[in-house]
Structure formats: structure tokens, C-alpha cells
């Protein structure tokens, strides 16, 4: 059971993270509203998230998912490497498969770096109180909006954020359809729909997450 379990863990945690991204993106969309409205809504929303016990559980599941996704992906990769100890001198795998599918691990590393930086900038500052303190807004909520807005006015950060949404798109495109197949979704015409859904989802996510900082920057 053990080996299959590893793939299932990668797939299940991945799918959970995919759902989380939808929620996350919808929150990011608030940033597109006029500043006066956006600040209030955004801060109220983030406070709600922080204080709801249900969301707390979900949040821990989220942290765990990220860790498990990485750990099991690592285990899977180690085994895969062992299974192919000698590489080919000439290998044109670009002719029979997509680049992203061949390089999920590499793409994953980029995303992991992004997550670490991202968490350091938001989560560590807001939740752990590390670094510069965060003020309160007019309603008395922690002014997360200010943190976000200032970061999104830093051109280096925006470039970093938006660029790394490209590998995220590739990762999601292959990851979504692949994880469902790993979990046993095999309906033939359903798989064709799944491929399109994955592409659509990945585009929405990477374009959505990637474009919002740029819009905020120029707002």
C-alpha cells in the first residue's frame, strides 16, 4: 500500500491546495475595488478568517497540506530517480510529452520558494508579529490591506510575485488533471473534459494571481 499511498497523498494535498487557491484568488479580487471600499472589505475579511475556529482548522490543514505535498513529492521523486539511474545521452522527450509534465519537481521548487517568501511577507508579519508592526484601520481591524498594498507597490516584489505565477500555472495545469487520474478518474470522455478544465483553471489562477499585483501597482 505504501508506494501508492505516496502518490495519493501528493494528489489529495494538491487538490486541497487547488481549492484553497480559488478562495485566495477571490479575496485578492477585492484589491481591484476602489481603495476606500477595498481596505474595509479586505481587512474585515482577513479578520474573519483569523478569528473563525472553523477557518483555523482549515488553516492548519492547509499548512499540513503544503508540508505533506512537498514531503511526499520528494519521496516520489527520490524513488523515480532511483528507477532511472542512467539518463539517456540523447533524449527528445519534448516530442512525446509536455515540458511541464516532465518537470513538475523543478517547477515545484520555484513555487516553494515563492510560498516561503510570500509567507514571510504576510503570514509571519501579521500572525507571528515578526518584523515591522502592522497598524489598525478605521474600523479597528488589523490593516492587512496596508501590508498588501505596500508590497504591491514595490516593483521588485510585484515582478517576483507575477513572474512566479507562470510556473504556478504550469504546475496547476498538469497537477490538477494528473492528481485526479492518480486518484482513479478514468472516464474516457470525462478525461477530455478534465484536460480542458485543468487548462482553464490553470489559466485563471496564474493570470488572476499574476495580474492583480500589476494592476494594484499601477492603480
Amino acid at each position: 500500500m505504501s508506494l501508492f499511498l505516496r502518490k495519493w497523498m501528493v494528489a489529495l494535498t494538491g487538490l486541497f491546495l487547488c481549492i484553497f487557491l480559488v478562495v485566495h484568488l477571490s479575496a485578492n479580487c477585492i484589491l481591484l475595488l476602489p481603495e476606500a471600499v477595498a481596505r474595509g472589505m479586505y481587512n474585515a475579511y482577513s479578520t474573519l478568517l483569523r478569528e473563525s475556529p472553523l477557518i483555523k482548522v482549515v488553516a492548519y490543514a492547509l499548512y499540513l497540506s503544503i508540508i505533506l505535498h512537498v514531503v511526499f513529492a520528494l519521496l516520489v521523486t527520490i524513488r523515480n530517480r532511483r528507477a532511472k539511474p542512467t539518463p539517456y545521452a540523447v533524449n527528445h522527450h519534448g516530442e512525446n510529452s509536455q515540458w511541464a509534465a516532465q518537470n513538475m519537481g523543478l517547477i515545484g521548487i520555484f513555487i516553494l520558494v515563492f510560498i516561503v517568501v510570500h509567507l514571510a511577507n504576510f503570514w509571519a508579519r501579521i500572525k507571528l508579529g515578526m518584523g515591522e508592526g502592522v497598524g489598525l484601520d478605521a474600523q479597528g481591524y488589523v490593516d492587512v490591506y496596508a501590508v498588501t498594498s505596500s508590497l504591491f507597490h514595490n516593483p521588485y516584489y510585484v515582478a517576483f510575485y507575477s513572474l512566479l505565477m507562470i510556473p504556478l500555472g504550469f504546475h496547476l495545469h498538469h497537477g490538477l488533471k494528473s492528481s485526479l487520474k492518480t486518484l482513479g478518474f478514468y472516464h474516457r470522455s470525462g478525461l477530455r473534459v478534465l484536460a480542458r478544465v485543468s487548462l482553464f483553471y490553470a489559466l485563471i489562477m496564474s493570470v488572476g494571481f499574476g495580474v492583480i499585483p500589476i494592476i494594484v501597482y499601477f492603480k
Partner: protein
Amino acid sequence: MRVRFRIWRQDNARVKGGFRDYEVDGLNEDMSLLEALDHLNEQLVLRDEKVVAFEYDCREGICGQCGVFVNGRAHGPHANMTTCQLHLRSFADGDTITIEPWRAAAFPVIKDLIVDRSAFDRIIRQGGYISAKTGTAPEANAIPVGKEVADRAMDAAACIGCGACVATCKNSSAALFTAAKINHLNTLPQGKPEQHRRVSDMVQQMEEEGFGHCSFTGACEVECPEGISVANIAEMNARYLKAKLFG
């Protein structure tokens, strides 16, 4: 026609191997790649050298014995083809053709371009059959099998066991091979009674042989001479889950 072969030479499993280059002349584009290698071997014999060991048998794309990595692709540059069906008209005069053995921990090199694929046999041994003794069968039409079901079983059963799926897979996964046999038998009513045991045992053997995981790159489907769909792997995963939950 003239080509330069870059061929992996390795005396046996215990020693290290390496590439050697051979210029071969006097070929024509209607020759198959394997016939060009035959031609090279005749020249090597006349030069008092050992011949290049490579595998083949039927030379009509059905036995599954031939199989080498040609210019960076399993069975050469075309999709859904065996090495023996590859002809020199797929190459240009003066081309360099690099030929490597299948690479996978579970397929150790025996000599030059020949690898040991007995891991496949051991996977079949663990349940790639229906346990009915000779002489015990009911009348063939007693159990109707709808055309769609029979066709689906046939699609999976078409696997010739060449190992291109493992060879081309970045993880050397044998998932397509294993799935094809499981789905062939588990789809048919005759295979149902032992379906859970079959999928559990065969998957376990596949893992013990040291093949990697399936990442659904889809390369295997492209290189498979019979074009067996990767959807079979997803189906196997479903069957495995079902076997573990209800088997």
C-alpha cells in the same frame, strides 16, 4: 546511403559501457534500421570484431522483442511504432543515429543494446491470468460479452510487452504495461472473480521490481506501438483503490 551509428557498447552487466561510432556505407532507404545494423554486424565480423548485440525476433512489429532508444526516442522518431518497423527513409543521408539500450533500474543491461525485461514476466506471473484449468471452460457463447466491453478489453490486451513505456518514462514506470493487463482481464466477465486479488498482487509486484511512479506525462502512450491509452493507468488506480477498500 551513408550514416554514422553511435552505439552503446557494453560487454556485460558487470562492466561499464560507452558509445562507439561506426560509419556505415552502402545502405538504402528501404532497409529497416535493424537491417542496417545487420549490415554493420557483417562488416564487423569481416573486420574481426565482435558484433553489436541487439534484440529482434519477428521483425514485423508484433513480438515486442526489439526495442532500443533511437535518437532520443523509444523505438525511434515516430509515434506508435516498433524499432523493427523503422526504416532508413526516416533519416537523411549522412545522419548520425544514436542508439542506446532501454534505461531503467528494473531493466539491467545484459549486453550492448540488450536489456533484461524479465520483470514484466514476473508482474504477469502475479495474476496476469485467469485461473481456469484446461478442460474446465463453459461453452463460449454461454457468457455474452457486449461488443463495447470486448473492444475495450482488446484495446488494453493489445500490449506487446516491448517495454517502450518504461524506457521512455522519466520515472521508468511500468504502470502502462501493468494497467493494460489488469484492465484487459478485469474488464471481461471471465476475469471478474479474481479481479481484486489480481490488481493488488500485480501492482505489488510492479513496485517490488523497482519501477518508478506514474507522473502522467503521457509519453508512454505516444511511444507504445499499440497506442495503449494512459487512461488505462487511471483505470488501474481506480481498480486498485477499489480492491484495497472492498477487495
